[in-house]
């Protein structure tokens, strides 16, 4: 041992001195004292350090714990075993262990020993980033650092060790919860650098505690709060940045860069570290895994706690997870006006969250627990118990805190179990570790003892009889051995009472009316009774004996046995309101006697049958035979192809990557959100396919996602197979940033917009030449995408308003030898319709929007009709999650404004957008061989009176009005059940939170 007294005085002095801060020489004093402190501790590990405060003497004794129930690992238990350790490491464990004579022996009869816990997602002792004070409206486009990566949010060079300082208070708190080792890191930025693995022993110093000074590298999708560089502003931007970073590291590692980049050097250095990715919910686990897959990296992923929703997809990632135990509180639904705001989705998550660990276990997914995400880390034991009620096994719970984190850190040889050679990091408990009645007595770290509760104190729980002042009292001592509870009864009457039990002394008091009795007793191990001194109500003192009349019986809680396994309400696809309990199935259907809007040369056919089989349209005609298909009587109804929205922003978790004026590297497929309720609402308006476009913040936007609205399916199932490649471009006020206070980003004028394109395409040409030359080149995701455009493999859908800019882009494309596929919005397309026809570009426009900004002052509702008259392929799009559900009516307006024929009008929302999206070989009209994406309408589909009754995608009824009524009914019932359960929870005294509704952002082009 060091010199506790010296340490004590040194720290006292330090405190005194630091509280007087006037002297400039104070610093020197502090340093000296710090040195003294260190010296005081130095005896243990740093044996080669000189010693000047005494003679060198080391303690080579062993420690042996005997008669314990030892969990060597979660699956290997030894009853009445011995654990022997020496200099912080286990040297023997088993039934029969030779205990050397120089051993301190601790008898743990009746107690259990567990390996202590490990948290691999900790921020312990590491200085965390501070939010950068707002820099006003001026965006910072350049990095703030020199000699590092071009993006400030990439910080692999950060090392937690360099900003670490042992935090005595937090260490104590963590030990009280059972933790012995943590892997701590800086929780900020997209690449966060390495963590530090350290033990939480109080005694000793960092020379012992730090087990690994660079342990694991941490990543996330979240930009640094401390850095102001504008890129990336979006989720898909973060994803693209990570991809480019890995490419750049490879390029750098190949010796192709003449300058020094300390970030990439660190990234390369950290390559063999375990890579931890802080992902969370919303499908982010899958997103992170996908990035890893493209670069041969298997991340260990910090999940969000909703993995039970799509457990199959989670399992398929093969990733090990770190999962939080942050089960949400029930909502306070006692006020019906307010309860209304709580969405079914959130209520259901409350119901299911505690089942998440059990579901992971059942699906054989490897996971470790973390304190991260817990509002109050003290809840961890309570929440583990809760998870166990919902199916998590004790073994798996223990593994998630011991062997799993050790394995993930590749430190199984050091920590996680009590096998020989491991650190002596263990807990001593009164019983099974997760049980409520169990006391955690001691937490030993590296063989250093930390007492949490006195385990030698006798268990005094039980029933007692006491006579005092001529009255008889019955005492019942319950609770845990270390902190018992007292109930005192006089006859049937329960009296007010209080008990404390420390250092073998019991202090108990109770009052009978105004008469108060105070007792104090030193617990005598030789008798079952309690003997001591009592102060009677009259102030006189006397001896008392509380005679033990019965043993303590752990009460089986009535509520527990009554509760049984908690009820889990069924999950749905997707797991939000209006999700299906069972996914609707593909059907072979014969539509009889419909008015069929073919959208083809046949035009609109009256009293016609359409047969669909295996998701395809197989026959159109009259008096078709069903041949096993279900017959739908469509008399008086209209059958059309599903509506296709060329321009939507529904189902996106983000829309604009506004950090750069070109963002070709970002992909909307990365952020498709299959749970967006607007998918369902759009189906209700007959929409079956849509292009999720990037926003219009930049001249060169991001790559599109073209998807089918398969409500209940995953994002990858919604995206078109062999999806045509598209990218969003934009012109005009948005890219000039005219409508908000921004004056420092190029371009600020339409003149500048041309130059951005000119420059990027020129560079893409040069890039392509270099690539084709076979010489080494830096893989540039942005240039790759632009080169695709030049090669004619990727199509442009360009946000555009006024004629000058429309003309400009066509001329630029001519010069650069590519075609613009689609002008979207194109509100002045009518002024250059002839030029558009000549270029071969389509126009996808609003039916009647205008006047919302200066560049749409000449927008007219006749635009579609005029463009059509000049031979331009015209679509009507939405760019709006409300209007998209009524695109049939918007198409109807092209008849009103400019007199399109009804059949041509109908094509503006079906076949024409299909053509513009290059999917017209699959969808867009009713034609044999095309996908059975159909809508059955109650009325003429261009009429305001028409209601979409059923919407099919590939023969699957993803929306049906009568099914909708059933869904509503079921949701009402489920809400009422969950409300009941939440009210019960509140009545049971649990904490609740006020009603809230989280809502997805709704996006348009302009959303930043």
């Amino acid at each position, binding site marked *: 041992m060091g010199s506790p007294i010296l340490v004590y005085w040194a720290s006292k002095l330090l405190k005194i001195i630091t509280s007087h801060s006037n002297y400039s020489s104070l610093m020197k004093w502090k340093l000296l004292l710090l040195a003294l402190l260190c010296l005081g501790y130095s005896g243990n590990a740093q044996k080669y350090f000189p010693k000047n405060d005494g003679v060198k003497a080391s303690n080579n004794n062993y420690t042996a714990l005997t008669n314990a129930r030892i969990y060597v690992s979660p699956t290997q238990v030894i009853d009445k075993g011995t654990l022997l350790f020496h200099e912080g490491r286990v040297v023997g464990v088993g039934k029969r262990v030779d205990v050397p004579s120089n051993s301190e022996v601790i008898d743990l009869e009746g107690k259990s020993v567990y390996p202590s816990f490990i948290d691999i997602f900790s921020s312990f002792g590491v200085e965390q980033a501070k939010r950068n004070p707002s820099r006003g409206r001026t965006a910072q486009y350049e990095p703030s650092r020199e000699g590092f990566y071009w993006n400030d949010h990439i910080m692999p060079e950060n090392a937690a060790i360099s900003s670490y300082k042992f935090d005595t208070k937090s260490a104590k708190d963590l030990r009280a919860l059972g933790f012995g080792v943590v892997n701590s890191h800086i929780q900020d930025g997209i690449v966060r650098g390495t963590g530090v693995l350290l033990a939480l022993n109080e005694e000793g110093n960092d020379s012992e505690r730090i087990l690994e000074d660079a342990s694991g590298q941490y990543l996330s999708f979240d930009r640094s709060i401390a850095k102001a560089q504008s890129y990336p502003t979006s989720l898909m931007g973060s994803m693209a940045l990570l991809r480019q970073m890995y490419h750049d590291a490879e390029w750098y590692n190949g010796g192709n860069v003449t300058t020094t980049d300390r970030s990439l050097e660190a990234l390369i250095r950290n390559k063999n570290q375990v890579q931890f990715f802080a992902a969370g919910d919303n499908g982010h686990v899958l997103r992170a895994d996908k990035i890893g897959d493209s670069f041969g990296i298997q991340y260990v992923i910090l999940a969000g706690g909703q993995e039970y929703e799509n457990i199959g997809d989670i399992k398929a990632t093969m990733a090990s997870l770190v999962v939080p135990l942050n089960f949400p509180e029930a909502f306070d639904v006692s006020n019906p006006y307010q309860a209304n*705001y709580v969405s079914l989705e959130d209520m259901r998550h409350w119901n299911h969250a505690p089942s998440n660990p059990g579901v992971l276990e059942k699906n054989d997914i490897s996971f470790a627990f973390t304190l991260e995400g817990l509002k109050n880390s003290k809840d961890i034991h309570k929440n583990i118990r809760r998870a166990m009620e919902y199916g998590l096994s004790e073994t798996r719970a223990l593994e998630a805190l011991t062997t799993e984190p050790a394995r993930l850190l590749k430190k199984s040889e050091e920590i996680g179990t009590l096998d020989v050679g491991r650190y002596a990091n263990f807990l001593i408990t009164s019983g099974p570790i997760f049980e409520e009645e169990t006391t955690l007595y001691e937490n030993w770290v590296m063989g250093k003892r930390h007492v949490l509760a006195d385990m030698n104190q006798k268990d005094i729980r039980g029933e007692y009889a006491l006579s005092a002042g001529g009255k008889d009292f019955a005492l019942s001592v319950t609770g845990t051995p270390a902190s018992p509870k007292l109930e005192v009864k006089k006859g049937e009457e329960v009296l007010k009472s209080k008990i404390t039990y420390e250092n073998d002394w019991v202090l108990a008091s109770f009052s009978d009316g105004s008469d108060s009795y105070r007792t104090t007793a030193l617990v005598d191990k030789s008798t079952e009774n309690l003997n001591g001194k009592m102060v009677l109500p009259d102030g006189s003192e006397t001896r008392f004996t509380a005679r033990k009349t019965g043993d303590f019986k752990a009460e089986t809680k009535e509520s527990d046995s009554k509760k049984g396994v908690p009820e889990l309400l069924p999950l749905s696809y997707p797991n939000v309101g209006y999700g299906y309990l069972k996914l609707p199935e593909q059907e072979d259907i014969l539509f009889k006697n419909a008015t069929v809007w073919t959208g083809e040369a046949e035009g609109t056919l009256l009293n016609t049958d359409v047969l669909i089989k295996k998701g395809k349209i197989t026959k159109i005609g009259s008096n078709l035979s069903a041949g096993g298909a279900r017959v739908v009587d469509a008399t008086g109804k209209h059958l059309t192809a599903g509506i296709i929205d060329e321009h939507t922003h529904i189902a996106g978790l983000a829309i604009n990557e506004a950090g750069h004026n070109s963002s070709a590297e970002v992909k909307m497929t990365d952020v498709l959100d299959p749970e967006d309720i607007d998918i369902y609402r759009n189906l209700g308006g007959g929409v079956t396919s849509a292009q999720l476009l990037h926003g219009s913040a930049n001249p060169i936007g991001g790559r599109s996602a073209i998807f089918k609205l398969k409500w209940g399916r995953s994002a990858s199932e919604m995206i078109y197979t062999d999806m045509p490649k598209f990218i969003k471009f934009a012109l005009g006020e948005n890219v000039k940033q005219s409508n908000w206070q921004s004056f420092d980003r190029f371009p600020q004028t339409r003149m500048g917009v041309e130059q951005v394109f000119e420059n990027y395409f020129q560079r893409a040409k040069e890039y392509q030449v270099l690539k084709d030359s076979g010489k080494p080149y830096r893989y540039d995701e942005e240039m790759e995408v632009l080169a695709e455009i030049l090669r004619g493999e990727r199509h442009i859908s360009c946000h555009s308003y006024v004629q000058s800019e429309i003309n400009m882009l066509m001329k630029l494309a001519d010069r650069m030898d590519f075609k613009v596929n689609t002008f979207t919005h194109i509100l002045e397309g009518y002024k250059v319709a002839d030029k558009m026809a000549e270029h071969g570009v389509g126009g996808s426009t609003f039916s009647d929007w205008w006047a919302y900004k200066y560049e749409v002052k000449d927008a007219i509702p006749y635009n579609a009709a005029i463009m059509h008259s000049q031979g331009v392929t015209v679509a009507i799009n939405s760019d709006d999650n409300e209007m998209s559900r009524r695109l049939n009516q918007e198409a109807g307006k092209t008849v009103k404004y400019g007199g399109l024929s009804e059949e041509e009008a109908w094509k503006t929302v079906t076949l024409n957008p299909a053509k513009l999206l290059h999917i017209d070989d699959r969808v867009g009209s009713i034609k044999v061989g095309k996908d059975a994406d159909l809508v059955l309408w109650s009325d003429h589909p261009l009429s*305001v*009176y028409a209601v979409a009754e059923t919407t099919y995608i590939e023969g699957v009824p993803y929306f049906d009005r009568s099914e909708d009524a059933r869904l509503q009914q079921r949701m009402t019932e489920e809400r009422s059940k969950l409300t009941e359960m939440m009210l019960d929870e509140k009545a049971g005294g649990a904490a609740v939170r006020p009603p809230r509704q989280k809502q997805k952002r709704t996006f348009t082009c302009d959303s930043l």
Partner: protein
Amino acid sequence: MKSYIASTFILLLCLAKAWGQQTPAAAQSETISITGATLHLGNGEIVENGTVTFTDGTITAIGAGLQGNGRVIDATGKHVYPGFIAPGKSLGLIEINAVRASNDQDEIGTMIPHVRSIIAYNAESQVVESMRPNGVLLGQIAPQGGRISGTSSIVQFDAWNWEDAIVKEDDGVHLHWPGSFRRGRWWMGEPRGFQPNSDYETQKQEVLNFISNSKVYGAGKSEEVNPAFRAMQGLFTGTQTLYLYANGEREIIDGISELKAAGIQKVVLVGGYEAYKIPDFLKSHNIPVLVNFTHNLPNLNDDAYDLPYRLPKLLDEAGLLVGIQNVDAENFQTRNLPFYAGQVVGQGLDKEKALAMISGNTAQILGIDNRYGTLATGKSATLFISEGDALDMRGNQLTHAFIEGRELSLETHQTELWKRYMGKYNQE
């Protein structure tokens, strides 16, 4: 800075140049009869093969098969409707939303009933002009924003200037009731979506204090004029209407109970998203509803996808007097007013009842039904002829429109551009 001023100036010049409207029509000089039409009276009734005759801006005869006199317009197979009425809009107060210089719709201050829309109303707005070819001929022009936004006036859409446009001056005061829930201030790091508004009671009391002070002010004789209190007086005498903007059940109940208790004579509920839950309460207080337009998304994730489509029907079936407004939509959208009504028909409401929600009912709610909103002898000849069903985009095609018997131009900035460019292409 100089170039900024210069460019603003140039922009204004451009706008000024663009602000030429169709020349307002001259007063009706001869009797006009429309014959052979389906007359949609705006009160739920319909007259087939009807004739409507008007002189000096007033309907003098109406009925089936009547002989026309004066100038006769044969409208066989066509439909005649009363001019549609758009409540609560800032038409003419803002021209181009993103151009600040064209914005006169929202004055600073939270309780400013003394701010009057009418004097800023731009009778020559191109957006106003674009209402007419769809049959929207009248509007209530209201200041926007704040708690009490100001005082509205009702105008007709074919005028030389604001005085000329007035149908009813200073008709009502617009109060936006506080919400017991509010949206998260995401820019301050709060989650989006709704959370309880802890200031609700305080905000409510501020409104009630203002109202009670206004009432007390009116009862006594103050040495100094308080313009805000003064502007509230018509609400206590019943010469003006209070337009109460509220959507939640709680807010509606609170608002109406408190305003009635405070002595406000006429209250109209604007919004009423949850009004269908408390029809009896609304009936017992005799409150009409200017309900949210149908081309809206549900407020909450779990609300029925078609609740906004059905809402007017639900209120009508509950026996309430219902008109449709689109106060939350951009002004240019107001020409879609007939289609908002048409949308409810798709949900099973009778077409003539739906029509009344943008004509007869609205006129009654706004207090201009003595002259407008329905077709009847003695009422204003503010009406139009459509080739087909005006509530449906398939039929809404105006051939003639009249305000006070004056036949107005159906051309607009937009039709002119249409014709100009079709002309260009046809020449080539």
